[in-house]
C-alpha cells in the first residue's frame, strides 16, 4: 500500500557551478521587481482564462505565495517548502474542478514572465544573459516539475481514497433467513472487485454456515465473458464449500448478450429477479412462507 508521502521529485537537469554564482543576483532582481512581475503574471493568468474556478482575489493571493516560494527556491535550491505549499493548494483547488493543464499552465506562465524580465535586464550583454539563463532555466524547470507533480500526486491520492471507499461499500453479505445469504452486487465487476466479492462470499458462507446464496446482479451494468467467468468461479468455489448459488437479476439485454457471445451459464441456477431467487432458496431449504390471516374480524 502506498502511504502517500511524496518523495523528492528527481532533478532533471543541473546547472553548472559557475552559473550558480549568478543566482543571488537574479534573486535580488526578482525581489526588487516583485510587485510589478506578480501583477504581470496574474494578468496573464486571467487573459489566458486559466483558473476560471477561482476569483481574482484568490488568484492574486495564490500568485503572491507562489511567487515568493518560487524566488525562495531559486535562492535556497530547496523545493520542500514549495512542495508543501503546492500540495496544500492542490488539496484546496482540486475539489473546485481545477485541471492539471491549468496548474501546469500557470507555472509555465510565471517562468515565462520571469524569463522575459531577465531578457529585458540583460539585453545589453548577450554573454551574461546566456549565463543567467543557464542558471535560471534548470531551477525554473525543476519548480514547474515540482508543482505539477505535487498536483498530480494529490489527485491520485484523492482517487485512491475514493476507490478505497467504494471498495468498502461495495459488497455486503446479508443473511435473510437461517442459512440463506443475499449478496447484491452493484457496479462494475473488474478483476479486483470480483476477487474481493468472492472472498467475502466464501467467508460469509463459512461464518453463517450458509447453504444457499442468492447472488443478485441487477446493479451490474455490463456483463461480458470476463465478468461471467468471475461469476462462474464464485459459484464453483461456493459449491466446494457446500453452498449452492442462485443467480438473479440478469436483465433481458444481458441475457441476450451472454447468449450471443456464447457464454455458457448452464451450470448456474438462474432466476429472473431477486424475489424469485429468494423464493427458490426458501424452497430448496424447505421454508414455506405463508401470509398470516388478516387481522381477526372482531378488531376490524
Amino acid at each position, binding site marked *: 500500500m502506498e502511504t502517500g508521502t511524496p518523495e523528492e521529485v528527481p532533478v532533471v537537469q543541473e546547472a553548472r557551478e559557475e552559473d550558480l554564482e549568478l543566482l543571488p543576483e537574479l534573486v535580488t532582481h526578482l525581489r526588487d521587481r516583485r510587485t510589478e512581475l506578480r501583477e504581470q503574471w496574474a494578468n496573464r493568468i486571467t487573459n489566458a482564462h486559466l483558473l476560471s474556478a477561482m476569483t481574482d482575489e484568490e488568484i492574486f493571493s495564490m500568485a503572491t505565495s507562489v511567487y515568493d516560494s518560487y524566488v525562495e527556491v531559486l535562492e535556497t535550491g530547496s523545493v520542500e517548502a514549495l512542495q508543501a505549499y503546492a500540495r496544500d493548494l492542490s488539496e484546496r483547488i482540486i475539489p473546485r474542478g481545477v485541471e492539471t493543464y491549468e496548474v501546469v499552465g500557470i507555472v509555465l506562465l510565471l517562468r515565462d514572465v520571469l524569463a522575459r524580465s531577465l531578457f529585458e535586464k540583460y539585453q545589453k550583454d548577450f554573454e551574461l544573459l546566456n549565463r543567467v539563463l543557464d542558471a535560471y532555466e534548470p531551477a525554473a524547470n525543476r519548480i514547474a516539475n515540482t508543482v505539477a507533480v505535487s498536483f498530480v500526486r494529490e489527485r491520485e491520492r484523492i482517487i485512491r481514497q475514493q476507490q478505497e471507499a467504494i471498495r468498502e461499500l461495495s459488497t455486503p453479505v446479508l443473511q435473510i433467513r437461517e442459512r440463506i445469504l443475499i449478496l447484491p452486487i452493484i457496479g462494475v465487476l473488474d478483476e479486483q472487485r470480483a476477487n474481493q466479492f468472492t472472498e467475502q462470499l466464501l467467508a460469509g458462507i463459512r461464518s453463517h454456515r450458509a447453504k444457499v446464496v442468492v447472488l443478485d446482479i441487477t446493479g451490474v451494468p455490463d456483463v461480458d465473458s470476463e465478468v461471467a467467468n468471475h461469476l462462474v468461479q464464485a459459484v464453483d468455489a461456493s459449491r*466446494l464449500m457446500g453452498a449452492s448459488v442462485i443467480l438473479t437479476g440478469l436483465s433481458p439485454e444481458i441475457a441476450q448478450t451472454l447468449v450471443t457471445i456464447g457464454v455458457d451459464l448452464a451450470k448456474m441456477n438462474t432466476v429472473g429477479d431477486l424475489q424469485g431467487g429468494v423464493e427458490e432458496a426458501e424452497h430448496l431449504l424447505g421454508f414455506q412462507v405463508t401470509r398470516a390471516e388478516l387481522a381477526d374480524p372482531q378488531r376490524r
Partner: protein
Amino acid sequence: MLVSILRQGSYLLASVHQALNDREIVQFQHDLVDQIGRHRARGVIIDVAALDVLDSFGSRTLANLAHAARLRGAETVIVGIQPTVAFAMVRLGMGLDNLHTALDLEEGLAALERLLQPPPPAPTGQGGR
C-alpha cells in the same frame, strides 16, 4: 499421525491433519480404499479443514479417491474446504466436478444420509417390482 481414519457405523471418517506430500497422499488413498472394503463402509467423509492449501495433484487424488470409493460401493463427501483453498482451486481451474462437497462434518453426514437414501419407488409399474 498425518491422517486419522475412524469408523462410525457404516461410515468412515478420514481427517487430514496437516499438508500431505505426494507420496503421503497416495498412501492415504491406498489406506482408505483398503479400509472401505474391510469395514464394508457405505459412506466416506474426508475432512480437509486443516489444509490451507491444496495443489492440483492433491485435488486430483481426492477426485480419484472418490471414484475408487464408489467402485467399492461407498459415496464420498469432502468437507471443510477453506475459503482460500476453494478460491485458489477454481482459479487454477481445478473444480471438483462429480464430487460431493459440504461445509463441515455435520453437513457432510447429512449429505451422506441423503445420498444413501434408497431412491423413491418408480411412479409407474414397470421398474418397481
